[in-house]
């Protein structure tokens, strides 16, 4: 503990030296006239402009201000100014999210606890397309990317979003929204090079076709260097992906708009895996490339019937492939989704919808991961209805909603919620919500057998003469995990320059996944003969989590903005008395209790931006990961109207640090995040 504190002081001392040096060299600030307006008006849409009252203040776009949920929006400006080069890194600024890098291309990301490479309680969508894999239930973040410059915003909702988004949006939903093709006209080329980014680049070109249609095409190449192991040796986890895509937006009439978009990608990401074997040395550790490829095609039709009624129909196809020594997966998904909104009368605004999803996979089994059956088709039917009830005009609104779902694993699921929004005036918003949400089983939790390790014969824990193969196995009786969430939130525009958003939650979980250790049996195939010690999925754990998240946005001067985020989280898990599980309670110590982030954005002149970002993440005792403080800095300069250069330094306080441990089930060896610097050039034409 003493060492820990000294270490922390040591790190802070270095930060203070930097900060002092920085302030010393900074030119003295010039007194700036107070400015009533902090909004970048060019970020507001027509609808938002029309909603702003002339005489009162409403800094945040209405959508965020009036949501009865814990919502945070990452804007394009936030992405650009933070200097991040991937979506997971951008998510680090969101209060309540946990983002930990496992190796140079894999992440563990969740909201409000239960983190892991296959964190299964967070749903992620890109332009309405689910990128949550039903195989392990989780997101292969290494495969999910797009051209960051063309992202309009990333909306993050912590807490259950099941009513609108469906099952598995238990602890949160991330919605990555790319720009309308109209907003990406002309050319843009970017190139970056640095110590970790070995040379990445992207090109986009957008133009108008015909009378009312716009399109863009893009290509992106990403090349990330190897990280290092905790011991200091260089790992083989470099990451190379080439992707390309297009988007076409067409207004066919005054009331109809069509979108057609698609992407394809191909690449590989390195990893070092430790796999069990039945012969000496019983564990093989080796580096390899995981091959990834995929594509998708999506179309959306929106029709406005009248001011009080509109609908959207969306259809997409998605294919993903990945292959390494543990597993091969090929998956095709087809999804159709319909939504209709109408104003029933003065009090009721109704939204309802229905959807169907078909997914079929083909698994390439290996010694360590075996799916039975190795190919499966699944159907998911869903329908939802939501009523937005105005109790007192402009002041009190009640939203009641429910989603019904039918899946091939657990049958029907019912997920209702109730939300109350109180807006006494333009400066204060209070909200409360109660929701039920479920996390449906993944394919793995029903059908898989994973050989996780071999205990050698004659060792301390295995005195027999046969090797013991430890396995994790799915069970067709595995049920959905359930959550009832109670949330309270408050937003206040304290002054014209300070906005504060507080969200608190108390989550009660039941039927949480456990791995029940069974009894040993003898197995002859594959040879040689060995004992098997299985752990089978069960639902023998319940628990509570509670916490609070705070976001603050302060603009003391019209050229200087601070954005802070703080999260507190407590997890308490309880195994059933008859449970034989030995690991699932570890989730209590796999999420940080405290996280803090502070971003400073300075417009030093109309051409020069300076951004600093400091973050603190608490320790993860169950994974032996220490707390850390990280500092990123970005300086950009507009050389000409169409040419911007920037220098970004990341993780400046440490030469390297560990952020997560070995993920559960598939033993990818974790590597450390290194200090890095890169330069970037952006040319628009």
């Amino acid at each position, binding site marked *: 503990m003493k060492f820990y504190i000294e270490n922390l002081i040591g790190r802070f001392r*270095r930060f203070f*030296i*930097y900060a002092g040096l*920085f302030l010393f*060299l*900074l*030119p*003295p*600030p*010039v*007194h*700036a*006239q107070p*400015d*009533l*307006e902090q909004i970048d*008006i060019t970020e507001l*849409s*027509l*609808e938002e*402009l*029309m*909603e*702003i*009252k*002339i*005489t009162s203040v409403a800094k945040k776009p209405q959508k965020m201000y009036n949501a009865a949920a814990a919502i945070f929006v990452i804007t394009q400006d936030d992405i650009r100014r933070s200097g991040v080069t991937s979506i997971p890194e951008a998510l680090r600024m969101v209060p309540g999210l946990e983002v930990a890098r496992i190796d140079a291309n894999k992440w563990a990301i969740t909201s409000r606890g239960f983190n892991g490479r296959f964190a299964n309680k967070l749903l992620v969508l890109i332009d309405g397309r689910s990128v949550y894999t039903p195989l392990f239930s989780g997101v292969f973040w290494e495969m999910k990317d797009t051209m960051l410059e063309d992202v309009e915003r990333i909306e993050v909702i912590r807490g259950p979003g099941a009513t609108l988004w469906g099952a598995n949006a238990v602890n949160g939903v991330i919605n990555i929204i790319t720009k309308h093709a*109209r*907003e990406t*006209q*002309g*050319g843009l080329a970017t190139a970056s090079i640095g*110590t970790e980014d070995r040379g990445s680049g992207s090109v986009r070109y957008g133009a*108008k076709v015909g009378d*009312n249609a716009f399109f863009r095409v893009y290509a992106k190449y990403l090349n990330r260097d190897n990280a290092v192991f905790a011991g200091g040796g260089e790992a083989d986890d470099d990451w190379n992906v080439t992707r390309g895509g297009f988007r076409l937006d067409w*207004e066919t*009439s*005054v*009331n109809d708009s069509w979108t057609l978009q698609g992407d394809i990608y191909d690449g590989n990401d390195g990893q070092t895996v430790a796999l069990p074997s039945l012969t000496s040395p019983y564990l093989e550790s080796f580096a390899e490339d995981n091959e990834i490829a995929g594509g998708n095609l999506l179309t959306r039709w929106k029709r406005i019937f009248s001011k009080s009624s509109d609908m959207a129909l969306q259809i997409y196809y998605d294919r993903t492939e990945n292959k390494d020594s543990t597993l091969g997966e090929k998956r095709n998904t087809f999804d159709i989704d319909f939504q209709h909104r109408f104003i029933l009368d003065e009090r009721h605004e109704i939204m309802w919808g229905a959807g169907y999803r078909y997914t079929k996979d083909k698994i390439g089994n290996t010694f360590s991961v075996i799916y039975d059956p190795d190919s499966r088709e699944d159907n998911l039917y869903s329908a939802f209805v939501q009523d937005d009830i105005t109790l007192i005009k402009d002041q009190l609104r009640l939203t009641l909603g429910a989603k019904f779902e039918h899946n091939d694993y657990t049958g029907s699921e019912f997920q209702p919620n109730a939300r109350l929004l109180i807006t006494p005036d333009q400066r204060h918003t209070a909200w409360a919500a109660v929701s039920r949400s479920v996390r449906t089983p993944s394919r793995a939790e029903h059908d898989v057998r994973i050989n996780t390790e071999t205990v050698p014969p004659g060792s301390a824990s295995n005195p027999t003469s046969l090797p013991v193969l430890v396995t994790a196995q799915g069970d067709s009786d595995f049920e959905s995990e359930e959550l009832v969430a109670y949330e309270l939130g408050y937003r206040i525009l304290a002054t014209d320059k300070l906005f504060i958003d507080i969200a608190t939650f108390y989550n009660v979980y039941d039927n949480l996944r456990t791995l029940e250790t069974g009894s040993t049996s003898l197995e002859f195939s594959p040879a040689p003969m060995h004992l098997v010690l299985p752990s089978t999925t069960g639902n023998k754990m319940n628990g509570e989590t509670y916490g609070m998240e705070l976001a603050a946005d302060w603009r003391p001067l*019209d*050229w*200087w903005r601070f954005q802070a985020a703080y999260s507190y989280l407590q997890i308490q898990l309880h195994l059933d008395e008859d449970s034989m599980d030995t690991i699932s309670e570890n989730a209590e110590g796999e999420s940080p209790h405290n996280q803090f982030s502070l971003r400073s954005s*300075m417009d*030093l*002149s*109309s051409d*020069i931006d*300076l951004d600093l970002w400091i973050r603190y993440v608490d320790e993860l005792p169950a994974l032996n990961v220490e707390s850390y403080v990280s*500092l990123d*800095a970005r*300086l950009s300069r507009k050389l000409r*109207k*169409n040419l911007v250069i920037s*220098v970004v*330094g990341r993780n*400046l306080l440490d*030469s390297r640090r560990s952020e997560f441990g070995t993920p559960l089930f598939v033993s990818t060896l974790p590597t450390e995040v290194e*200090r890095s*610097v890169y330069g970037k050039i952006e040319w*628009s034409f």
Partner: protein
Amino acid sequence: MLNKTPGFIVLVIFCLMLGWVQSPYAEKTASREYLIKAGFLYNFAKFVEWPEDAFPDTSVPLTLCILGEDPFGDSLKSIEGKTFMGRELAIRRYSRVRDTDKCHILFISPSEKKHLPEILDRIKDKQVLSVADMEGFAEQGGIINFVRIEDRIRLEINIDAARRAGLKISSKLLNLSIIIREGGETIRP
């Protein structure tokens, strides 16, 4: 220890760059109302399409002109220099309508109210989007008028005048606006 770290080098580079940066700019405050209107003007540039011959070549900027006293204060600074379809937005201020021939968007300041008929007459054959915030502007042949309804800004669009000027207004913008027809018909969103 410090001088070995790239972080230190980056910081020094930052600080040196800061040394020759001009001091942060101080700006006058602008009224909230005109800031919102500046936001609309920015959106007009996005949602209105000019005929091709309105731009003799690709280097010609999209020009927003203010005729008369500028009520925007510094609000227009945030939109100046933005690019639309590869064209930059330039802002010019004029006191005489005969100087406004190169304008694509012409905002007629409330200070010019009494000259409105002659201004509209002068620009009526031009490919210019006329914008104002005066009662009856759209009815008199102006294209877009800002009106204040329930403490919010709404738009009146005279689509006949827009058509005469050869301008194409996106359906998205029209959907949200009050449409004025010169036959006297008014369509509300």
